[in-house]
């Protein structure tokens, strides 16, 4: 034992045997196996129940989240549909008042800044 350096990468058989003897259970090996096997069904059942518990715990928040998503989706969709889309580019470019954008883009003269500004403000 003492010849084996502590950093030896091999197990120390003497120390190992001494520790093994010190840790060896004294009672019947088969009794322990039987005891473990007695818990076999219970362990699997508990695991199954635990899985159901997890699912149950997630069920209510899941339903609330799904309902919230549905309501939000409905509101968003309705907002989109309520916006009347212009029928054509001409309609979109049509001035609300005054010469507007169409006049600006078709004119040969440089645009008047006040007209541009007014058009933009009017569009809003």
């Amino acid at each position, binding site marked *: 034992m003492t010849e084996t350096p502590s950093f030896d990468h091999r197990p120390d058989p003497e120390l190992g045997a001494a520790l*093994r003897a010190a840790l*060896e259970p004294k009672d019947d090996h088969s009794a322990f196996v039987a005891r473990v096997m007695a818990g076999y069904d219970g362990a699997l059942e508990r695991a199954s129940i635990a899985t159901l518990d997890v699912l149950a715990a997630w069920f209510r928040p899941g339903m609330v989240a799904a309902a919230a998503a549905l309501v939000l989706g409905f509101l968003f969709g309705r907002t989109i549909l309520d916006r009347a889309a212009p029928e054509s580019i001409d309609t979109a470019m049509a001035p609300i008042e005054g010469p507007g954008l169409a006049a600006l883009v078709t004119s040969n003269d440089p645009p008047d800044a006040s007209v541009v500004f007014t058009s933009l403000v009017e569009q809003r």
Partner: protein
Amino acid sequence: MKPMPAEGLPPSPPLPPHHPPQPQGGPARIGGKEAGDDQALVAQTLAGNRAAFGDLVERHAGQARRVARAVLGDPDDADDAAQDGFLSALVKLGQYDARRPFGPWLMRIVANAATDRRRRRNVRRVEPLDTALVGGGPRPDAAAVRNELNEHLRVALAELPERRRKAVVLFDVEGYSHAEIAGMLGIPEGTVRSEVFHARRRLRTLLADWKEPMR
């Protein structure tokens, strides 16, 4: 409920209804052909074969109980922890990677179960040395001396930090490699070497003191 099957499991060859019983306490190290048998037993357990799980317990019970006892000290607590470990392994069997050896995977679960139990009960059973033992009282025969040594070793082991205890038992008693222990304990291999070194230094001193009287 059956344990969930894992991916990568080898096809399960038919096994005889019962393996020949292992020696009391099981082998110190399960490898080679036995490791292959472990994989087959795992596959059969996953298929719902209760007896196959019984064979796994039979094979690894001794090792699991020793490792748990190294952590907990008390043999009853250790058996409780080893049992917890086996049943926990049964439930988690679907997570086991069949390409790796089963023993280290199981021992990791058992060691963790023992650590959990120790934390829960806040147990540190470092029992005071019997004055008769400390004083080197009368030693009627070699068996009595051996019992005293065992008691001293258990006490010395209990005084070591938990990780050191696990490392030296897994290495010197159960025969796992540094790399395997590193995987089990979730620490670097160099740390395992260091833990084994320090544990050996303490335990060898104790053992050397007791060698002469036992002759």
